[in-house]
């Protein structure tokens, strides 16, 4: 009979074999390409010579030393931050309202609220472009009602991008809060009510604190997806309101300066990872005692 240790070793080997095909795909198509991109970001580029396999930090220095890029990065993270705050502000109450609904209504509304997640971002952004154009649905309606006499500029503004991004991202917030609400004991609300708390007090003093881990994890998802969003800023901002991802796109497919584009992308990756890690740190420190 095989001793227990050999059985364990056998089980471990089998586990690795089961993961091997997926791992092979990821090594070949995630790890290798990312390393190649990292290397690419140190190369240089000339208009006539193309990509030259030199090795230096000049692309990074170009980006970090140029106020043009500073502005793009600042705008990107500004848009992401405002989008996140808005998503938290409207997604959290919506999740709670859905959570309190009768189950028949709830399934139908859940379909409407988080279903758009499955519909192409291009299509959804197209809808916002039609709504927000100078002669778009919103401006036409407001002018017909004679509330304004000149169209409000929404296309090609950061504000317009934020509105459409909130639409794209808020389902993630609803989902995260929804999941957190389902982990709480419904009796805590009844307990608060029996002690004389009104609906708003219950929401702010009992529900929200328990749902906070969901709000925070939802915020992290929304922020990192917004910071690297491409389709929405590309369609609604075009060349006029550039963000990091559209800049990378231009460098790769228009200017053809791949090394510079790679450096910008790597900086975005690093920034997003830094935000995630430090955010997790802070959140964990804050909540580990309560929710361990």
């Amino acid at each position, binding site marked *: 009979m095989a001793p227990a240790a050999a059985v364990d070793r056998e089980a471990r080997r089998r586990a*690795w074999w089961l993961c091997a095909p997926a791992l092979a795909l990821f090594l070949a*198509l995630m790890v290798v390409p990312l390393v190649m991109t990292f290397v690419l970001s140190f190369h240089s580029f000339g208009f006539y010579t193309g990509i030259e396999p030199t090795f230096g930090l000049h692309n990074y220095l170009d980006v970090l030393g140029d106020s043009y890029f500073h502005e793009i990065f600042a705008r990107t993270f500004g848009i992401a931050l405002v989008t996140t705050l808005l998503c938290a502000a409207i997604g959290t109450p919506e999740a709670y*309202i859905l959570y309190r609904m009768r189950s028949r209504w709830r399934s139908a509304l859940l379909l*409407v609220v988080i279903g758009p*997640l499955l519909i192409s971002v291009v299509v959804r952004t197209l809808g916002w472009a039609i709504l927000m*154009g100078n002669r778009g*649905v919103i401006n036409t309606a407001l002018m017909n009602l004679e509330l304004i006499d000149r169209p409000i500029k929404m296309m090609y503004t950061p504000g317009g991008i934020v509105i459409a991004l909130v639409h794209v991202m*808020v389902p993630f917030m609803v989902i995260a809060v929804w999941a957190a609400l389902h982990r709480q004991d419904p009796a805590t609300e009844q307990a608060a009510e029996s002690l004389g708390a009104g609906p708003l007090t219950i929401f702010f003093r009992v529900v929200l604190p328990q749902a906070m881990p969901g709000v925070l994890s939802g915020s992290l998802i929304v922020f990192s997806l917004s910071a690297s969003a491409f389709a929405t800023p590309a369609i609604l901002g075009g060349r006029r309101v550039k963000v990091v991802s559209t800049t990378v796109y231009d460098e790769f497919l228009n200017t053809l300066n791949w090394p510079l584009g790679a450096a910008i992308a790597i900086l975005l*990756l690093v920034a997003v990872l830094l935000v995630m890690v430090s955010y997790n740190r802070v959140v964990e420190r804050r909540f580990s005692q309560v929710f361990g």
Partner: protein
Amino acid sequence: MTRNGPFALLFNALFVLFMAAPLVVVIGVSLTPEGFLEFPPSGISLRWFRAILDNPDFIEAGWTSLYLGVAAASLSTALAVPAALAIGRRRFPGRDLLLATFMSPLTVPTIVLGIAFLRFLSQIGLSGTFLGLTLCHAVIITPFILRLVLASVTGLDRTVEKAAESLGASDFTVFRRITLPMIMPGVVGGWVLAFITSFDELTVTVFIVNPSTTTLPVRLFNHITQTTDPLVASISTVVILFTVGLMFVIERLYGLDRLLVGGEAR
């Protein structure tokens, strides 16, 4: 369940309006008989849906997206199910690292993945090929399948498998007759979610297509950045209807909330 107050219901109505508005507008615009965008449409006409038939490049892109979604979702499912079985039920050295690797496409910004795939595929000569697209999409959608299959694997009562084994079933029989049927909802749900994700994917795909392998989102995107006309609205309407159809299938088979919330809430 407690009732929501009038204020909550008003908030909910506005929220639903906000979520539905761009989709309603797209569908409304697609029905116009005119040659320009107008909302609400002055009449109802299917003129712009007929116009799709005169644009074979859109139709071709649609087929490419469909094939690509099926191929990538199937490949990714075939890789993710065994991995989920190992990760979901065994502790072994390197397990957490493997899981983190397989989930990493969710953390790495898609734009970064896009240029990385472009660089890699053009170096090995696969750029713009259907094979290259399939492999890249399989990577991006793996986390979605893995999450759902993992949820069903960890929810599985292992004594059920032991019962089958004690009745004389071999490892493979246990997998085929017991384990697979029990995790099947997760596998199917994961496949559909992965298919939709692949079908909608733009940010990565825009870097690695060439004119003969252009997908529908890329084709739409390129068109919209030039001009918005009722034609893109009608094509978008078809996309919306197709996705909504899939959503109903999911809702029937698996539950949309379970699919999107990740198997834990119900």
